[in-house]
């Protein structure tokens, strides 16, 4: 039997808005994923350390404080530095389309804004992990880039 999909749901930075992170974590748990929730006020280093220790397939960050253009690239870089090359970095929050596109170019996966059904996030994660386990994607964006 295939290993369950393991997801780290993380709150990076000072942002205290945890409604979305908890709702997504609950939905993923109910979808059969193993979910580890970091709790609030984590640094990028703490998040990547937890991802490494928990051996996750996916890191999902929730950022509603406007700090996404700083925090996503830092987590992304630390994941490269620690060798987490086949772990998806995805997430959501108040993030403009323009910023989502810029982060995608960096290698971050799809990001989800307000109003997204949790099912869409779950389908995306499931699809990415299946493709990754089959060796079809090389980086979070699925574009085959490797750091």
């Amino acid at each position, binding site marked *: 039997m295939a290993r369950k999909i393991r997801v780290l749901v993380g709150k990076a930075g000072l942002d*205290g*808005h945890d*409604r979305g992170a*908890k709702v997504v974590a609950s939905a993923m748990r109910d979808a059969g994923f193993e979910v580890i929730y970091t*709790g*609030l006020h984590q640094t990028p280093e703490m998040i990547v350390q937890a991802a490494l220790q928990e051996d996750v397939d996916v890191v999902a960050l929730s950022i509603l404080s*406007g*700090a996404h253009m700083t925090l996503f690239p830092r987590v992304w870089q630390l994941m490269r530095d620690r060798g987490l090359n086949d772990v998806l970095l995805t997430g959501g929050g*108040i993030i403009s389309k323009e910023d989502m596109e810029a982060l995608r170019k960096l290698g971050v996966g799809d990001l989800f804004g307000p109003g997204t*059904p949790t099912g869409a996030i779950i389908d995306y994660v499931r699809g990415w992990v299946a493709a990754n386990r089959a060796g079809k994607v090389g980086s979070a964006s699925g574009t085959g880039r490797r750091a």
Partner: protein
Amino acid sequence: MANGRTQTPPETPASTGAAPAGAAARSGAPAEPRFETMSGIPLKAVYTEADRRADLQERLGEPGAFPYTRALFPEGYRTRLWTMRQFAGFGSADDTNQRFHYLLGQGVTGLSTAFDMPTLMGYDADHPMSLGEVGREGVAISTLEDMETLFRGIPLDKVTTSMTINAPAIVLLAMYVAVGEKQGLKPSQLGGTIQADMLKEFIAQKEWICPPRPHVKICVDMIEWCAANMPKWNSISISGYHIREAGATAAQELAFTLADGIGYVEECVKRGMDVDDFAPRLSFFWDVHNDFFEEIAKFRAARRIWATTMRDRFGAKNPRSWMLRTHAQTAGVSLTAQQPLNNVARVAIQALAAVLGGTQSLHTNSMDETLALPTEEAVTVALRTQQILAYETGVANVVDPFGGSYFMEALTDTMEAEALATIKRIDEMGGIIAAVERGYPQKEIADSAYRFQQQVERGERVIVGVNKFASDADELSIPVLKIDPDIERRQSERVKSVKATRDAARHAAAMKALRDACMSDKNLVPFVLDAVRAHATLGEISDLFREAYGVYREPAVF
């Protein structure tokens, strides 16, 4: 309580909407349509004389008289219109000062300050935890100099200001008093509000420095000091807003917020304060969501519960201690990123409910707030919405127009009964502080948030433009406010420059006195005020609190 909360009968999924995810749940016979409020209170098709309680008149009172169900003042908005108070803050103190002047020029009648995340959490702009957050979600304030810039050209004895700050609220209160001193004003001349409600931080907004009990002690210090020195100042704004935004229903918002209020009153009384010395300056803050009648009922029930509690439970004798004065804000969480112009309609309806509910002060959200902080254009439409309500619709002419309505009175009674049952449960847990420490309200709210999301995804709850009447076309894009990326560097330099140029001996002495006071049970306000006058920064003072009281880490449960 019922789980399903269908407000409209289920029908075939709209051709334009997303298909309900839980189609399987509807297998078999079609479910009976259910009519309920957003909180899950069942609704009849019509309310009649049979729903009227025999003691209605006593439970209503006249407007301006106990228990204030109808209104705080006999003539309602004829005496005084609500304050149009738009929450604003972004970038540097200079950027926000310009927005304040713009808003005052457009006719706002009070200011309200939004601080950035580092300020809210007690970090200076140059702290490593502040990385990427400076000026993003509000204005960055680290020093007294920043605070002076923020209120440059604004006479603090003429304009009232509300400050949405909690964990380091005592520092911002001291800075405000110090800026007033520089304008030649005494604390007694300053009017406004500081949020300083830490219980709802642990329950919902999640911005803290220390564990709950020391934070509540500092809140009580502020209530006590303001009662003696700032007769025109609201020393706390007991807030349901964040509780609701985090996922609570209207009934839960009502219950947890009033329970918080009871908690603060208990702590003040324990310190030996006379309830009538501080209770008149306690203020409240409600969220206003889409369920029109339920929201109005919430305001009415809140006034009745508070008046009764203050008089009968705490023995308050001054009628001003019985009066629940409140600010209100339309529900940010109800806004949609999809079809953002629709938000203008939502905000207008919510604002109308707040006015019919009898709010003393109102913020209307801007249509673009699910995308970023609002642009000047979006803020103006939001303010104009209030002005249209006040000056075009006639709704301010008559006090409590729904008073005596069979339906409104029944709904007010039900909201009251649900809130009182929850407050009783909290009392049995040993009070709200104990309930918060064991995570009771936090868990209830998270469960409500998840239930709400599931209902949306099953199509049981309609969100126009999101799960029904969605548009396949590219979303209309509206302009979005951009924050200057250089703000962090400039703000960090300002902090460093203040530290380099202040009188080091005076600073050290004030900090030592504050550190000693933290180890005692003295009221901290005078010590923080001295530290701020000596140009101690927000981060330095917060660090003293971390050292004295420890830091708080919430158990990570979902």
